[in-house]
C-alpha cells in the first residue's frame, strides 16, 4: 500500500469513527449534554474518542496486553505476526504489550505532572497578582531566575542531583513547568484583579482563598485550559526526551520515549516498529489539542 493511499484511508477512517462516535454520544447522553455533543465539531469528537481510548487502554492494560510488561517472551527483534502482533524488542519483550503498558506509564505520569504544575503555578500566580507588593516581587523574581535556565538542562541537573525515580521525575518536571504556568496565570489574573467586582469582594472582607477560588479562577479558566492542553503535550515530550536520554522513566518500565530509543536501530533496516510509540505520542498530542481548542472556543463564546 503506497503512503498517500494509506494517509487518505487513515483520514477517512478517523472522520467516520469520529462521526459515529459523536452520533452515539448524542444518543446515549441525557438531554443537556446531548445538545453539547451534537454541536461539537468532528475534530473535538475525534479528540475525545482518542483520549477515551487511551484512558481505557491505560486503565485496563493488564487485561488487554497479551503478555506481561517486563517479561522476555521470545527472540530479539522478531518480525510482526504470529503470537507477537507487533514483533518483539531488542530484549525479546512483546512490543504490543509494552505499547499498552506504556500508555499507562507515560500518560499517567504526564497527567500527574501537568496537574501538579497547574495547581502550584496557577495558585501562586493568581496569589501574586492579587496581593501584589513584595510577595509578587519575591515570587516573580524567583520564577524569572528559574526560567533563565533552559528547561531541559535544568531538569537534567535536578534529576542528576535527586536521582531518577518516578516521583522525582514528576516533581522536577512539575517544578520546571509551574514557572511557565505561574507567568501566564499571573498576567491573566492581573487583568482581573482590577475589576470592580474584585474591589467589591475585598471591601466585603473576603479572604485571599475565596477571592482566588470563586472570583478570579472562574474568569481565568479559559486561557488556563488552553495552556493546560499545550503544557500537557510539552510535558509528554519532555518525559519522552528525558527517557530517550536515559534519565526519564527507568527500564524495565515500559515508556514510549525509551521504546523509540531502544528500537531505533530497526529503522536502518526499514522496519517502522520504533515509529509506533512515537506515533502514539503524536496522536495523543493532536487529540488533546483538538479537545482543548473546542473547549476554548466554547468558553470564549467565539462564533466562527
Amino acid at each position, binding site marked *: 500500500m503506497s503512503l498517500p493511499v494509506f494517509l487518505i484511508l487513515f483520514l477517512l477512517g478517523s472522520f467516520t469513527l469520529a462521526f459515529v462516535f459523536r452520533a452515539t454520544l448524542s444518543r446515549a447522553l441525557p438531554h443537556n449534554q446531548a445538545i453539547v455533543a451534537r454541536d461539537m465539531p468532528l475534530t473535538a469528537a475525534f479528540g475525545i474518542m482518542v483520549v477515551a481510548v487511551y484512558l481505557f487502554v491505560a486503565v485496563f492494560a493488564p487485561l488487554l496486553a497479551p503478555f506481561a510488561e517486563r517479561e522476555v517472551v521470545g527472540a530479539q527483534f522478531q518480525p510482526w505476526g504470529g503470537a507477537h502482533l507487533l514483533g518483539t524488542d531488542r530484549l525479546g519483550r512483546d512490543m504490543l504489550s509494552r505499547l499498552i503498558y506504556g500508555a499507562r506509564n507515560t500518560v499517567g505520569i504526564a497527567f500527574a505532572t501537568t496537574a501538579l504544575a497547574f495547581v502550584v503555578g496557577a495558585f501562586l500566580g493568581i496569589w501574586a497578582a492579587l496581593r501584589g507588593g513584595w510577595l509578587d516581587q519575591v515570587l516573580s523574581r524567583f520564577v524569572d531566575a528559574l526560567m533563565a535556565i533552559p528547561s531541559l538542562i535544568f531538569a537534567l541537573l535536578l534529576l542528576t542531583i535527586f536521582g531518577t525515580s518516578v516521583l522525582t521525575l514528576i516533581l522536577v518536571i512539575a517544578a520546571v513547568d509551574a514557572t511557565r504556568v505561574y507567568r501566564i496565570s499571573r498576567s491573566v489574573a492581573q487583568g482581573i484583579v482590577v*475589576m*470592580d*467586582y474584585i*474591589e*467589591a*469582594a*475585598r*471591601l*466585603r*472582607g*473576603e479572604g485571599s482563598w475565596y477571592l482566588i477560588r*470563586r*472570583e478570579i479562577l*472562574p*474568569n481565568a*479558566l479559559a486561557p488556563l485550559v488552553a495552556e493546560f492542553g499545550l503544557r500537557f503535550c510539552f510535558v509528554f515530550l519532555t518525559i519522552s526526551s528525558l527517557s530517550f536520554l536515559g534519565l526519564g522513566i527507568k527500564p524495565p518500565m515500559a515508556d514510549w520515549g525509551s521504546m523509540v530509543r531502544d528500537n531505533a536501530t530497526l529503522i536502518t533496516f526499514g522496519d517502522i516498529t520504533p515509529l509506533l510509540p512515537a506515533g502514539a505520542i503524536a496522536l495523543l498530542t493532536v487529540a488533546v489539542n483538538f479537545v482543548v481548542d473546542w473547549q476554548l472556543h466554547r468558553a470564549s463564546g467565539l*462564533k466562527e
Partner: protein
Amino acid sequence: MTDTPLLSIRDLHIEGRAGEAWLPIIKGVDLTLHRGEVLGLIGESGAGKSTLGLAAMGYARDGCRISGGEIVFDGIDLRSASERRKRSLRGRRIAYVAQSAAASFNPAHKLIDQYAEAPLFHEVMTRAQAQSDAVKLYDKMRLPNPAEIGFRYPHQVSGGQLQRAMTAMAMACRPDLIIFDEPTTALDVTTQIEVLAAIRDIVRQFDTAAIYITHDLAVVAQMADRIKILLRGEQVEEADTRTMLAAPRAAYTKSLWAVRSFARALQPPATDAPIVSVRGVTAAYGKTPVLHNVSFDIHAGRTVAVVGESGSGKSTTARVITGLLPPTAGEVLLDGKALPPDYRARSRAQLRQCQMIYQMADTALNPKLPLREIIGRPAEMYLGLKGRALRERVRALLDMIELEPDAYIDRLPGELSGGQKQRIGIARALAADPQVVICDEVTSALDQIVQEGILRLLDKLQGELGLAYMFITHDLATVRAIADDVVVMQHGAIVEQGAKAQVFAPPHAPYTELLLSSVPEMHPDWLSNLLAARQSQT
C-alpha cells in the same frame, strides 16, 4: 434648500447575525436630508441609531448586512456602488465623527498628520495646504493655540479638545454630510457646551448637512433642525425641532419627554446625629494631592449628592470612606466612632455598614457567578444565613429590586440588560443590610428611561429601609431629582455645600453657577442664549 435631497434613504432594512439566524435591526426606515440641514436622531441604546448613521455612508458593521431598501446620496446609489466608489466618497463628501475621540484617534500619530490623511488620500490638497487649513479649522473650532495644537499627540490634549479636533478632521475635505455619533456623550457638562457650540458654528458656516445621533434630548434640541425618533429599529415620529418639543404626538415620545419629571419629595432638615461624617479629609495618590480638607455629613434616610466634573475628587472621596485610600489627614466617623483608615483594619460589622454600588455594572458583577451567589454571598458572610434561609433572603432581595426571583436566580450577569445588572448591584449592596450606600455614578451609563427606573427604585428602597445615600454624579438633573443635600466639588475641594434648595437657589458660588448653567435645557434657544449671556459677561 434645493428640491432634490442630499441624502435619501427609502425603506431601509438592516439585519444583524445572531448565531445562525439574522435578526432585523432596522425595520424599514425612511430618511431625507437636504443640503445644510441638521437632523437629530434619538433613541435609547439598541434602537439602531448608530447602525442607521453608518448606513448613510453605505456601510454596515461586521456581522450586519443591509438587506433591503435604497440609499441615495446626491444621485449616487450607495447600495449598488462599488467599494472603490464608496471609498472615494467617504472622508471627502461624507464624514463621520465617533463617540469616543480618544479611541478613534491613532495614539501614535500627531493630530495634524491624522488631519492631513483624508485630504492627501483623496488628493484634494497638498500636505502644506492641508496643514495650513488644519490651523484655520482648529481656530474656528476654538481650540486653544491652533497653530501648535496639531503637533501634539492625542494623549496630550483633553477629551473636549480631542472631540473638537476630530470634528475639524471630519471637516478637512469640506464634506457635504457629516454624521455625528454621540460626540458629547462622554464629556462633562461644562466641556460639552464648548464642543456643542463649536460644532454648531462650523456646520452652519460651511452649510454642511449633518445627522446628529444622541440619546440626550436637550442636546439635540440645540443642534437639530428636525428630529427623528427611533424605537427598536422603527421610526416613531419625525418633526421640526420646535414642533416636536412643543407637541410630541407619539406616546413613546411623550414618555421620553417626561423622564426628567421624577423628583423626590422634599425632606425636612436632618436633626439626628449623622451616620457617616467625613472630617477634614485630605488625600493623595502617591505624591499627587487629590483631596483638600473635605468635610460633610450623611444622615439616615437622606441623600447627599456629590457633584463635580471628572477629576474633581468625587470618587476619591468615596474611596476614602470605604477605606480603599487611607487619607493623609482627617478621619471618617461611622456612628460617631472613627473608622480605621484602611479597610483591611476594619471589622466585618464596620465593613457591612457601608456598601457600594458601581458605575459600570458590567465590571462590578463577576460574569462567571450566578445571581444566586452574587447576591447571596454578602448575606451569607455578614448575616450567617445558610441553606433555606439564604435562599429565601436572595428571593426577597430579587423581589425588592423588582426582578422575578424564579426567572432570575440562576442566571449569569451576561444574560441581563444594563438596567437589570445595575439592579443586581443594588441588591448586592442591600444584601449586607447596610446603613449607608455609596452610589458612584450608578445611572450615568444607562438610558434615560432606565435611569429613571433605577432612581425610583433607590428612592423607594430608601423610604422602606431608611438608608443613607451618598450619590456621586456629574448629572445635575439626577441631583435635582433625588438629592436632599448637595456637595459641589472642584479640584479636590468642596466649593459649596448645603440643602438642595439652598445650593440651587442664587446666589451661587461661581463654579456652581457655571455647572448649573451648563446643563442643557430642552428649550431650543437655550444654547444661543447662554452663549450670548456668557459673551456679554466677558
